[in-house]
């Protein structure tokens, strides 16, 4: 997919402060930051691959492994924590058989935690792809996942 990365790069000027917007666009396109894309970015911005890894690993948004077909984000903000968000995450880990941060072997879901989705009054919340589910009940999680193949 080098063409897509190139197409992203030409939209930005070669200034170092564009590194994060470029990484964000690459992730939007590929779903993750691939080792090849890092090489391309390095050549384009004339900064070392090390530096790019240094910056990208600093921010929680960037991932370096291929995501699943659906993204599963469990909110562990304070309000969600107080209302059982951690239990929701534990249960999902068990149901899916993967740890937080991993992708299921069948590439159906990738499971991650987020610090806060900003819907604290409706906690606990889980985000699947773009949809946010509010007041999630642990005993209803398996049913919810059935909607996503």
């Amino acid at each position, binding site marked *: 997919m080098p063409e897509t990365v190139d197409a992203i790069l030409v939209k930005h000027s070669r*200034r*170092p*402060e*564009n*590194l*994060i*917007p470029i*990484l*964000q666009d690459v992730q939007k396109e590929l779903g993750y930051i691939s080792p090849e894309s890092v090489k391309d970015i390095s050549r384009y911005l004339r900064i070392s691959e090390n530096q790019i890894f*240094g*910056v990208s690993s*600093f*921010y*929680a*948004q*960037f991932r370096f492994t291929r995501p699943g077909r659906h993204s599963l984000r469990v909110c*562990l*903000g*304070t*309000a*969600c*924590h*107080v*209302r*059982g968000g951690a*239990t929701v995450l*534990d*249960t999902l880990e*068990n*149901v899916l058989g993967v740890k937080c941060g991993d992708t299921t072997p069948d590439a159906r879901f990738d499971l991650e935690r*987020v*610090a*806060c*989705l*900003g*819907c*604290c*009054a*409706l*906690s606990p*919340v889980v985000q699947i792809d773009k949809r*946010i*589910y*509010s007041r999630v*009940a*642990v*005993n209803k999680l*398996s049913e919810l996942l059935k909607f996503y193949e």
Partner: protein
Amino acid sequence: MNNLTKRIESAKQKWEVFQKNEEPIIYIGAASCGRAAGAVQLLAQTNRWLKENELTAKVVQVGCIGPCYLEPLVDVQMPGQPRVSYNNVTTKTLPVILGSHVGESVPYTKGAIGHFGKEPFNGIPRFFELPMLKPQVRIVLRNCGLIDPEQIDQYLAVDGYQGFMNALQTSPDDVIGVVRRAGLRGRGGAGFPTYKKWTVCRNAPGNQKYLICNADEGDPGAFMNRSLIESDPHALLEGMLIAGYAIGASHGIVYIRAEYPLAIERLNEAMQQMKDYGLLGEHILDSAFSFDIKVKEGAGAFVCGEETALIGSIEGKRGMPKSRPPFPAISGLFGCPTIINNVETLGTLPNILRNGPDWYNRFGKEGNRGTKTFSLVGKVRRQGLIEVQLGTSLREIIYDIGGGLQKPFKAIQTGGPSGGCLSEEFLDLTVDYESLTAAGSIMGSGGLIVMDEDTCVVDLAKYFLDFTQKESCGKCTPCRVGTRHMVEILTKITHGEGSAEDLLALRTLGDTIKKGALCGLGQTAPNPVLTTLRYFRNEYLEHIKEQRCRAVVCKDLIEYRVIKEKCTGCQSCVKVCPTGAITGPRSEPHNVDKTKCIKCRSCYVTCRFEAIAGDAIVIGSVEKRS
């Protein structure tokens, strides 16, 4: 300027026509929380319903009016009648409401929560007289939920950009003077007088100056900034024009969390409208003032809420704080003088410039002027976004506005992970910068999390420390090593393996980190532990001496049991257990295999709400085997 005056006139006329409403208007609260509660589905259903019934109505998506616990909210306004708000609307109740109110012009009073008219209406209470709304003073949030955030004309019709036009007619120094007399302090949490920071930047040498809006609302449990931007983006943008003019900046940047896609979308739309109206770009309103604004998406790092780290992130680097001085007001973004203001600070400015400092001084108390928005969440009955005068007591916020709790009150956390956990004795504490600091907490950006007896304060302190430890950038040793060590000790305590010496170690570590850390993240990180140690020491001791967690939260100290006498053997819990820990044939009491149980609560919830017995599964402290 003339061009805009004309546009304002036409906007006001349009607004009047809109208010008179020849046809029905249906408002749907579609900010992020409304959407999470199902507003998008309701929107589609409303349009379908209108089509099927061959009725016409204006359907408007509005922002958040505050009481999130009532979401989704759908409002109906019939010609010549006040707007009526319906709460917790579902796909089932929506046709009933629309059928009655839009179809037959009869308000469905049973489902209505309030109306927006001036006179009494059909026995429905006035919305702003509701117990949650009445004690509030809405200045920053004045338009939220009332105007269409995607229409600059509606903002202009309610005196939008008037404050900026007033500012343009005076000198930048006069604007700074107005803000000084208003007594505005930074709403990001620290409460530094806004005018002081501005003056330093204004007087700093250099042709290029920057204004950055800090919308990296990283505190878990806080969503005031998101709501304001989604519901009234022009309020923030007008504030940026005013601040940019005052400090002499030509570039503005909104640094916003990538997790807020709707807010970003609304900002971009609003900026396009500003350009069309000559409110952004070169020679704004034919004056000598030129200003542009860019939106920069954050990439998920809590520490970037700190000024110098935020600047590093915009420059494309790791977001690590630098030691100050030099302060950003003298040497900030790309080495130029830079002012970083919080969303709420900027959102307050249009009101101050429009109504004057004396008006603003009517709110709040000496030294703490004006209002503050809070996201009131946790175990209170009425949760949502609120705005109160500084100097309001915690009791008023929790009981009058929040409607109290269902179970007894235990604690309130102010200021997010950097704040403190206050006990019942502080309920009459007034919310202002100094009082909260004296109690060991901070104002912070405005998250208020209320907790009842089901929350374990030790677990909560561990949660916050775990958060700050993970978010620590690792630059300075006290924060990097210290917070990690504190988490280890807290984990030991929640596992029931703590000792009395651990409490002393926590105290010492906390004090050291507060004194030694480089930036605000580290300096405030120990607050949740230090305050809980001070106000809830007994709970720590119970975990240590009795291996008991009274809130039955700490997993290693609790177990799930079936009460044989109560269990009807309905098998509901067997079906939901993810590990197969619950077994037992139908109609016979079930059994929990404690070695398999992961304490996920599924069975407990199922038994209470879906099973026959209802209370056959209990969570209790681990019984000591002797």
